[in-house]
């Protein structure tokens, strides 16, 4: 697990405070009125400029840019930082505008291309039946 992520625990998401997350976005929500919301699998990556000013960013912004040293989806960010998905959508857009993140929205025409489907199929076929000795739950 990368730096900056909360340690794994038995309770990944406790009861989330409903008001605090949207105070972070000054009440803004990812709204369908401004076009379709970014897909949950959209990849987010920290820019070198973002990492350079990391120390000057406030709590959530800091955590997002720090976590995005490793490219990840909006969903992973939300889960790991325990933020509501729509809060992450708004903050990621802000940070992108500030030049601190790049946001890679998947092009659905590209993702549904037969060549991509075949790569996913081949990749899945390569997965063995059993996970071996690494699995420690269930």
């Amino acid at each position, binding site marked *: 697990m990368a730096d900056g992520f909360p340690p794994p625990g038995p309770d990944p998401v406790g009861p989330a405070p409903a008001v605090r997350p949207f105070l972070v976005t000054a009440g803004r929500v990812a709204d369908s009125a401004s076009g379709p919301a970014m897909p949950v699998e959209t*990849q987010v990556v920290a820019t070198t400029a973002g990492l350079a000013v990391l120390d000057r960013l406030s709590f959530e912004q800091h955590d997002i840019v720090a976590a995005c040293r490793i490219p990840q989806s909006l969903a992973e960010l939300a889960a790991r930082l325990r933020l509501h*998905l729509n809060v992450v959508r708004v903050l990621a857009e802000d940070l992108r505008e500030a030049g601190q993140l790049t946001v890679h929205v998947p092009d659905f025409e590209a993702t549904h291309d037969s060549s991509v489907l075949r790569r996913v199929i081949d990749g899945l*076929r390569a997965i063995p039946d059993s996970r071996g000795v690494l699995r420690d*739950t269930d």
Partner: protein
Amino acid sequence: MTPTDSLTRGTGRTAVRPPLPVKMVIAGGFGVGKTTAVGSISEIEPLTTEASITEVAAGVDDLSLTPRKTTTTVAMDFGCITIDPTLKLYLFGTPGQERFGFMWDDIVEGALGGLVIVDTRRLDDCYAAVDYFEHKGIPFAVAINAFDGKVEHTLDEVRWALDVAEGTPLVVFDARERGSVRDALLVVLELALARNGG
């Protein structure tokens, strides 16, 4: 990977290039084995995030303070599989099946396909998900979770009861078995590929 795979917003330099993300959706009634299936094949322990679903009826929740939206926050479990450094498959389990419907577009839009998990003892729990995928035209298969290796009805009985279209694959699988989940997902992807014309 071509530059057209994703619409990059933002011009800053980044040290790393992200993979192209693709997703599949795992649907089904409460307790039917969605998270178990995700966990069986995901390379990470399933993560949980909070997402919003839009509700038609006015709800009593804190988010209703925001204008123009009546939303309910639900927990969504998901996992992922790195196909290669340039391609990553995400698996999203969809909660709140009793209200499954257009409000899930926010999560499902763009999915390569769906797997509707069925417990044959509670067939009607999955009607909404089947309807949803059929209505949206998303390739999907119905996967009967064989709890304890037993299925209460024959495949024909289940197909009849669910009234799924002839071309919709029906498979029996075990959500706890990695190979079994893999094979069920492959059925969906093969269907998606066939629809593309191979």
